[in-house]
């Protein structure tokens, strides 16, 4: 179904007009009361708005929604195509594209590149450099005018020196006005600084705002803002600019003959499989945390293993010796930043709640629905913790096929 509706002014008019012969009241607003008088129930009129205040919609839109509107077939909105036929200058963007997908950081970088390309009277082209495969589906809305793709086998692994040499050669060939990279742990920060050192230019790092000919970057490990002139090489932070959203771009493959040779001193030996429990709690992305309400600790450990979660604990669980001290979450333990935090049998002492303040989603599994953890949680499961964990484990077992399918999506942090 589409969420775009085609208006039917006539139906709307009929809906508004109670005296129209075709008007059918959607619910009997007017009733004949016990005394025979017509009574209008004022409570039935209108709806409760988002901030809890009653709103009466006299435009008829709400009625029309149900009555007159006919759903139109969804039409993909065709965004205008942004074309740069003969660019006056180029802007080179080396994206992280972890797993071939553009992260939001990449898109922000491209957005900034697009802004820089269309700032003045001259029109520039944004050239994106991809290493490794491209699996991104919405490439054309990213703001890439031309695209350079290195997809040799060597690029599948960590080879920053080769990438740097390639970029360096691209720079000499294309002579871009600006070079932009995301200042990210996923490769951009490293590559950008390598390039800067190789080209012997001073980069602007941690850039978060570009206004006119000035840019603002973070200095002092994030404690200061440095306003300085726009530089050639920019390593930009996330949300430095809005991503491109109004236009489509050509993604024209640009074949540049790059044959950079360099001495490779670093060799990737591959990622090490890290036991979730070896991960420092402060870094962990998914934490299953146990507290005083847990009766079956082996099951808790099994659940953590099955879910692939890092184990955490409340102070009481640590004090009682069920978990080691370095697993304690909270103001007196470790402050955590997990995307998902599942608190099993933790009622939520104030120090604990302080420690999970930065977690994105909190799930509470608890027998008491009035505890503070349930109040904080985005999702609460009330009941016996070991039974709920049982159900979860069952589901996981029956679900392996499905979850594998889900796993093919490459996640980027």
């Amino acid at each position, binding site marked *: 179904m589409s969420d775009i509706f085609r208006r039917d002014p006539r139906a709307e008019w009929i809906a508004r007009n109670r005296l129209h012969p075709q008007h059918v009241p959607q619910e009997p607003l007017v009733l004949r009361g016990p005394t025979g008088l017509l009574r209008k129930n004022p409570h039935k009129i209108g709806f409760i708005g988002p901030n809890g205040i009653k709103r009466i919609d006299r435009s008829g839109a709400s009625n029309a929604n149900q009555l007159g509107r006919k759903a139109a077939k969804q039409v993909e909105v065709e965004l205008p195509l942004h074309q740069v036929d003969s660019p006056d200058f180029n802007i080179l963007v080396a994206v992280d594209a972890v797993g071939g997908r553009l992260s939001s950081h990449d898109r922000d970088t491209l957005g900034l590149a697009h802004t820089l390309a269309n700032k003045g009277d001259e029109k520039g082209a944004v050239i994106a450099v991809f290493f490794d495969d491209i699996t991104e589906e919405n490439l054309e809305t990213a703001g890439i005018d031309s695209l350079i793709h290195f997809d040799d086998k060597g690029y599948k692994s960590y080879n920053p020196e080769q990438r740097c040499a390639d970029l360096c050669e691209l720079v000499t060939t294309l002579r871009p006005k600006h070079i932009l990279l995301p200042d990210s742990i996923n490769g951009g920060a490293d590559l950008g600084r390598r390039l800067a050192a190789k080209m012997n230019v001073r980069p602007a790092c941690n850039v978060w705002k570009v206004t006119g000919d000035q840019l603002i970057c973070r200095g*002092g490990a994030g404690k200061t803002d440095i306003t*300085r002139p726009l530089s050639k090489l920019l390593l930009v932070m996330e949300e430095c600019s809005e991503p491109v959203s109004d236009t489509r771009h050509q993604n024209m493959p640009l074949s540049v003959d790059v044959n950079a040779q360099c001495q490779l001193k670093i060799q990737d030996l591959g990622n090490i499989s890290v036991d979730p429990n070896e991960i420092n709690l402060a870094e962990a992305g998914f934490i299953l945390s146990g507290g005083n309400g847990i009766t079956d600790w082996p099951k808790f450990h099994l659940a953590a293993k099955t879910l692939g979660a890092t184990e955490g604990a409340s102070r009481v669980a640590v004090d009682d010796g069920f978990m080691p001290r370095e697993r304690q979450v909270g103001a007196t333990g470790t402050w955590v930043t997990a995307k998902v935090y599942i608190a099993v049998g933790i009622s939520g002492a104030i120090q604990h709640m302080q420690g999970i303040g930065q977690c994105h989603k909190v799930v509470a599994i608890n027998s008491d629905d009035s505890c503070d953890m349930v109040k904080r949680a985005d999702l609460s499961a009330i009941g016996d913790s070991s039974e*709920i964990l049982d159900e979860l484990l069952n589901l996981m077992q029956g679900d392996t096929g499905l979850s594998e399918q889900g796993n093919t999506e490459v996640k980027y942090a």
Partner: protein
Amino acid sequence: MLKDISKTTSKNIKMSVLISVGEHPLSARPRRAEQDARALELGLKLAPESLKILYAGSTGDSAATEVLKEYMGMGIDQLEVLDVPPKTDVTLPLLEKLQQDCPDVVLTGIRAENGESSGMLPYLLSEQLNMAMVPAITDILCIDKTTGFAEVLQALPRGQRRKVKVNLPFIASVDMAAAAPRQSAYGSAMRGHLKIDPVTRTMHDAEQEQWQISPAQARPKRLKIVKAKTAADRFKAATAKVQGGSGKVIYDNKESAEAILKLLKDEKVL
């Protein structure tokens, strides 16, 4: 697996650690820079005898001297100081010093806790000294001088690790995920010795003088962008209920397990 660190590290490895004066993010007081202290910890673990510790910066500042003492509190007798005047680039003096010393391994933090904090220093040094550069390491697994290789562990987001083989000599920046630095003991801090080398050639950083430096502004959180076509849509977007005001509470075990699983999948943590 991570703990399986084979002790194949050769003897007589020449290792240098570059340290700087850090700044506490909340109180802005000088302190041991967190990453540099980790680099020093790693150096002390691998080559406690042959370790050289270098600080390039002004010695006129008493606060800086206090911090250098704190580094020495980690059990260091001597620390070499390149007396670089303030507002001067430290790359050149360090470069000359390292060219003299010819270390096999240079360790440092990822970026300074004050100043420009661009994190360029190790890259500039590696480029000039023609050494390999490995960013954000957490540990050095082995250094084999005979074959001329070392194996290091690199930090990836969310606690993941990558193993990398690198030619000697190399520079590495040490990540926050590396082992925490040992406590600084007041006694050895007070008794440590600063060996101050005067610096002959320096480069004044003229570019920085044009910059305006101010306390960091809080960056506004990005709002969900609504590309509204009509006034009513814009109104709706502006008044729409903020997501996640209060959580969902489920009392049925089966239902709650399903809901949890769905949330885990939505958040892509499974």
